[in-house]
C-alpha cells in the first residue's frame, strides 16, 4: 500500500496548501484561486512527467549503465538505442504499419461519420434515438469481447495481417466517437445557414462541401485527432489481427521484451518514439480536448 499512502499524503498536502493563504484577498481569490494555487498543477505535472522522464533517461543510456548503476541522468548520453530502431526494419516497420492503419482508420471513420452526424444534428427520423444509443454501446464495448470473433471474421475474408483489417476493426469504437463529436460541433452551427443556402440555390452536396464543411472545419480536425489517438493507443485488437506484415509498433515492443530478454534501452527508446506523435498534434487541439473526451458534450 506504500505508493497509495504516498500519493494520499501528497494530496492532503496540496489541499492544505490551497486553503491556508485564502484569508488575504479572498475576493480576488474567488475566480483565480489563491496566490499559491499554482503549486497544485505544478506538483501534478511533476508527478505526470516523472515516469516519462525516467523512460527518456533510460533511452539515452546503454544497457550496461541501466543495469549496473543507478543514475538520475545518463553519464554518457548515447543515441545508440534510437539508431537501433531507425536502422532495423523489424522496428521501424512497426511505426510504418501503425501509421498506415491509423491513417486509414481516421479517413474511413470521419468520411462515414460526416453525413451521419449531419443527419443526427438536423433531422428527426424513425429510430434516431435508438440508433444513437446503439452507436454509443459500441464505443463502450470491451475490445476483449471482440478479439476472438474479429480474428475469425477477418480470417474468413482473408484479411488477417493487413492494414485494412485493423483499420476496419478500429471503426468499432472510432465511428461512434466521430459521430458524437461531429454532432456536437454541427449542432453549434445555426440551421438558418442551411436554409439560406438552399434558398440561394445551392444543391445539397454543393452546400455541404462549399459552405458547411468550412464552418465545422475545427470539428472535423478534432474528430480526426480523436480517431487518430484512439486507434494509435489501442493494442489488443491490433495485436490479435496481425502477425508480421502489419504488426503495430506497440505489439513489436511487447514481443521484443519477451523474446530477447531485457533490452531496456531500446524498449525505452521505442516507448519515447510512440509518445511523440501524440505530443506533436496535441497543441493544435488543446482547446477542444475536453470536448472530444466528453463525446462532443461539453
Amino acid at each position: 500500500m506504500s505508493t497509495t499512502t504516498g500519493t494520499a499524503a501528497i494530496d492532503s498536502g496540496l489541499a492544505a496548501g490551497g486553503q491556508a493563504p485564502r484569508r488575504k484577498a479572498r475576493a480576488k481569490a474567488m475566480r483565480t484561486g489563491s496566490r499559491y494555487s499554482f503549486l497544485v498543477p505544478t506538483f501534478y505535472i511533476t508527478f505526470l512527467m516523472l515516469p516519462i522522464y525516467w523512460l527518456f533517461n533510460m533511452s539515452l543510456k546503454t544497457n550496461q549503465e541501466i543495469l549496473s548503476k543507478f543514475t538520475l541522468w545518463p553519464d554518457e548520453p548515447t543515441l545508440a538505442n534510437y539508431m537501433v530502431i531507425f536502422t532495423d526494419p523489424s522496428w521501424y516497420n512497426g511505426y510504418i504499419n501503425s501509421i498506415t492503419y491509423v491513417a486509414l482508420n481516421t479517413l474511413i471513420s470521419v468520411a462515414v461519420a460526416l453525413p451521419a452526424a449531419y443527419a443526427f444534428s438536423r433531422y428527426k427520423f424513425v429510430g434516431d434515438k435508438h440508433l444513437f444509443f446503439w452507436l454509443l454501446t459500441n464505443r463502450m464495448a470491451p475490445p476483449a469481447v471482440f478479439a476472438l470473433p474479429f480474428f475469425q471474421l477477418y480470417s474468413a475474408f482473408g484479411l488477417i495481417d493487413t492494414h485494412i483489417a485493423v483499420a476496419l476493426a478500429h471503426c468499432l469504437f472510432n465511428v461512434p466517437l466521430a459521430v458524437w463529436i461531429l454532432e456536437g460541433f454541427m449542432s453549434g452551427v445555426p440551421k438558418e445557414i442551411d436554409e439560406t443556402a438552399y434558398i440561394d440555390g445551392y444543391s445539397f452536396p454543393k452546400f455541404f462541401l462549399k459552405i458547411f464543411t468550412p464552418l465545422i472545419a475545427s470539428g472535423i480536425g478534432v474528430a480526426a485527432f480523436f480517431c487518430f489517438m484512439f486507434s494509435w493507443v489501442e493494442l489488443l485488437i491490433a495485436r490479435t489481427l496481425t502477425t508480421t506484415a502489419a504488426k503495430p509498433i506497440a505489439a513489436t515492443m511487447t514481443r521484443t521484451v519477451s523474446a530477447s530478454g531485457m533490452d531496456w534501452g531500446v524498449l525505452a527508446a521505442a516507448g519515447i518514439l510512440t509518445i511523440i506523435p501524440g505530443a506533436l498534434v496535441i497543441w493544435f487541439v488543446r482547446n477542444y480536448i475536453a470536448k472530444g473526451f466528453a463525446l462532443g458534450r461539453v
Partner: protein
Amino acid sequence: MEKTINNRAWFMVLPVLFLVAFTAVIPLMTVVNYAFQDSFGNNQFFWVGTEWFTDLLSSERFHDALVRNLIFSFSILAIEIPLGIGIALCMPKKGWGVPVCLVLMALPLLVPWNVVGTIWQVFGRADIGLLGYFLNSIGINYNYTQDPVAAWATVIVMDVWHWTSLVVLLCYAGLVSIPEAYYQAARIDGASRWAVFRFIQLPKMHSVLLIAVLLRFMDSFMIYTEPFVVTGGGPGNSTTFLSIDLVKMAIGQFDLGPAAAMSLVYFLIILLFSWVFYTVMNNAGGEKQQYAGEE
C-alpha cells in the same frame, strides 16, 4: 434547435450502419453462436443450451474477477474525481499557464496503453526504476511482481497517472464556462470560498462531472492492456480483471464456449451501464436547455 422530421435522413446514416454492422453485429452473432455450443475441434459443434451460462454464473473465478474489477473501478473513481476537481480549481484561468497546463496534462492520455504499462513496469522496478529504487531505499519493501498489495497499489497509481487528466480537463472546461458575473455577485454577498465552490462551481460542473464519472467507470471496467503489461494479472490472480480473464480464456486456453458466454454476460453488463450513461447524459442536457430558457 428545432429539428425537421425527415425520414430520408436514414440514407445519410446508412454508411455508418453498414460499417458498424460489419465490425460489431457480425462478430457479436459469432459470439452468441458459440455461447450455446460445444466443440471437440474439427469444426464439429453441438448444442449445449445454457450450460455455459449456468457454469459461468456459479463459477468462483468469474465472481472474483467481477468483484476485483468493481473494487478497482470504485477505488480509482474515489481518487481521480476529487483529485481532478481539486486540480481543475487551482489551474490558471488565463495567461501563458493555460496552454502549458492543458498540453502537459493531456500528454498521458495520448500514450499508447501498453507503453503506459511499460513506463510503470520500468518505473516501479526495484533495480532500475526510480519509484521502486526510492521506496526500497527508504525501507519500504516494494515489489509489484511478488506482493499483491504492491501490485494493486501500482495498478491504481498507474491509472491515476493515466486518467486523472481527463477529469481535470472536463472540470476545467466546466469551470471556464462560468460567467464572471456569478463571482461578482458572490463577492457582493460576501460568500465564502466554500460557498462559491458549493453553490456556483459545483453546480456548473455537474454535467461534465457526470460524463467524467461515467466514462471513467466504463473504461476502468474494461481495462486490459495496462495491468496486463505491468503485472500480467498476477501475482497469482490478484490483479486479473474481467478483460484479462476473458482473453486468457478465449485466446490462451481457446475455450470458445465459456469465453463466448462470458463475453455476452460482460457485454450485457456494459450495455446496462451504457443505458444508464445515455439516459443520465440526455437528462443533464435537457436540464441545461431548461435553465438556458429561464435566463
